[in-house]
């Protein structure tokens, strides 16, 4: 008995592996041509790369210098402190994951506060105090390698976000002084390349500040400040874009129920604006992270700086390919992790949106 509602199966050529192949790879003659051409090209490249990686490459340069790549000039006797920091972060990440997955509302605040405490603890642990303490001081100036890259990236991201939000709010402020200052800051910074900002931080700052102050600021700290302010200007513009997308009715509804302007901003407008701008802001963070490689120019040894130094050693001459392939892979992994985190965040915050 056939009824009108009985499910009719699609033709066999339209489903399964064959259907997929036909639809996606060999739909027309030029599709087929492109498919064959691409497969041929990819095979050649892949063969070349694997062949080189497995037989020709001298990976010894990476394995021998792995510590140098990771921590640069950080004293090897103190490396346990780095492991301890990584351990702390891993524990925190695990706790956070559990709390969020099980949706334990009451623990969230505790977790947020612990993150701040743990972060400060890590900074103290890594930088140390003075001589004759269990954790002797390791001056920022000698931080290098992947450790420096990550430090600059994390500090830049964490510090530039709130500054950027404040600048964006400042640019929309009704107070002329704040508005003009924010607008000028954003426009000037955006009108200048990052390298210029780094040079200003390195070379010009000592001219402006008394020697007693500028002498104490290590190169790394100055670069951190420069990169943070640079990134903050771009974050501010992203946030401003998000703020503009919020309809006037949202402000009015907030005011009409009696909320003051600060609450309207913090509870209604900013959450929506930031949520909408997550992809753009994370994009800015990824580019900030990659731009940390520019610090080589002002003499800091980040991951790329170390890579260059390693290839300069006489025993490893001719190993640029291996070294830079390795650095590339590390950048790829860290950047993918960032964009993965961004997608997760978007998904989690996007529940029920419109």
């Amino acid at each position, binding site marked *: 008995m056939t009824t009108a509602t009985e499910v009719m199966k699609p033709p066999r050529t339209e489903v399964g592996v064959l259907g997929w192949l036909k639809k996606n790879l060999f739909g027309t003659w030029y599709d087929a041509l492109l498919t064959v051409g691409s497969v041929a090209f990819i095979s050649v490249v892949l063969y070349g790369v694997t062949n080189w990686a497995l037989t020709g490459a001298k990976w010894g340069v990476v394995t021998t210098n792995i510590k140098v790549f990771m921590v640069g000039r950080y004293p090897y006797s103190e490396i346990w402190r780095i492991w301890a920091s990584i351990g702390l972060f891993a524990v925190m990440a695990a706790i956070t994951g559990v709390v969020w997955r099980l949706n334990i509302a009451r623990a969230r605040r505790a977790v947020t506060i612990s993150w701040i405490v743990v972060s400060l603890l890590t900074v103290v642990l890594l930088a140390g105090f003075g001589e004759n303490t269990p954790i002797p001081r390791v001056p920022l100036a000698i931080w290098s390698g992947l450790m420096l890259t990550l430090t600059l990236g994390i500090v830049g991201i964490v510090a530039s976000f709130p500054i950027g939000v404040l600048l964006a709010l400042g640019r929309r402020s009704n107070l002329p002084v704040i508005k003009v200052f924010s607008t000028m800051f954003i426009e000037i910074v955006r009108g200048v390349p990052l390298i210029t900002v780094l040079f200003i931080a390195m070379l010009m700052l000592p001219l402006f500040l008394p020697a007693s102050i500028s002498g104490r600021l290590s190169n790394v700290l100055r670069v951190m400040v420069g990169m943070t302010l640079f990134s903050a200007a771009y974050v501010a513009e992203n946030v401003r874009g998000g703020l503009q997308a919020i309809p006037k009715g949202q402000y*009015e509804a907030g005011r009409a*129920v009696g909320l003051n302007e600060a609450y309207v901003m913090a509870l209604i407008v900013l959450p929506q604006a930031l949520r909408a701008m997550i992809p753009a802001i994370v994009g800015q963070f990824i580019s900030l992270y990659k731009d940390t490689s520019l610090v080589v120019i002002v003499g800091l040894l980040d991951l790329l700086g170390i890579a260059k130094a390693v290839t300069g050693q006489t025993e490893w001459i001719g190993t640029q390919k291996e070294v830079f392939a390795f650095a590339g892979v590390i950048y790829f992994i860290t950047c993918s992790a960032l964009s993965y985190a961004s997608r997760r965040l978007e998904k989690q915050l996007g529940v029920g*949106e419109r």
Partner: protein
Amino acid sequence: MENERSGASETREMIICRDVHKWFGDFHVLRGVNLTLRRGEVVVICGPSGSGKSTLIRTINRLEEHQKGDIFVDGIELTHDIRNVHAIRQEIGMVFQHFNLFPHLTAIQNVTLAPIYVRRWSKDKAEEVARQLLERVGIPEQAEKYPGQLSGGQQQRVAIARALAMQPKIMFFDEPTSALDPEMIKEVLDVMVELATGGMTMIVVTHEMGFAREVSDRIIFFDEGNIVEENPPDKFFSAAKEERTKLFLSQILHQ
């Protein structure tokens, strides 16, 4: 109910507008409006679009600023003093044409937000009151949904609950049914009728003449920035004096 309302009408006025003027740039939107609203009174304002009727109620809770004239709400003068503005906004609940719910919060969070942050209620108390209000507007089962998951009529009812959560003495409705699909208008009007018969002081900007006839004490015809004429519903429909009112009525009643 009737007795209660007429009894309350002897007490002081809830809203007084005296010679209120407002300009948008060079455009003179409100041209010396005088309006008095007694406690428990339900007033419907109708009139052509662009006549300034929405602007008038938005001026009374300072979503727009008036440039000349005096406004008093429950004895509080509307001045530039932000404390007066906040005090007045807490007296008045507002329902918008486009609902203006907060899309990132669930229905119940929309309702509890202001009580928690303005009235400083505990979360538990605010939620208890919010659930009662959602019950009252007939959608208790939608509490955990986001505005985007609700129909227009349901969203507008959440918006009414959100306004009521601050326990206002006066409710403003700014064309509350204009953005709704026809089959959802009644569910919102029913809630408004329930409020009106319960003794709430209300100003409703609307063209729902059935609602006006049923529950309003006064209907005001507004045109070109001022009140053209006002009458109780029976007289308003049958014995309009002004030509403009007659024209308007003929347009909206025989469309």
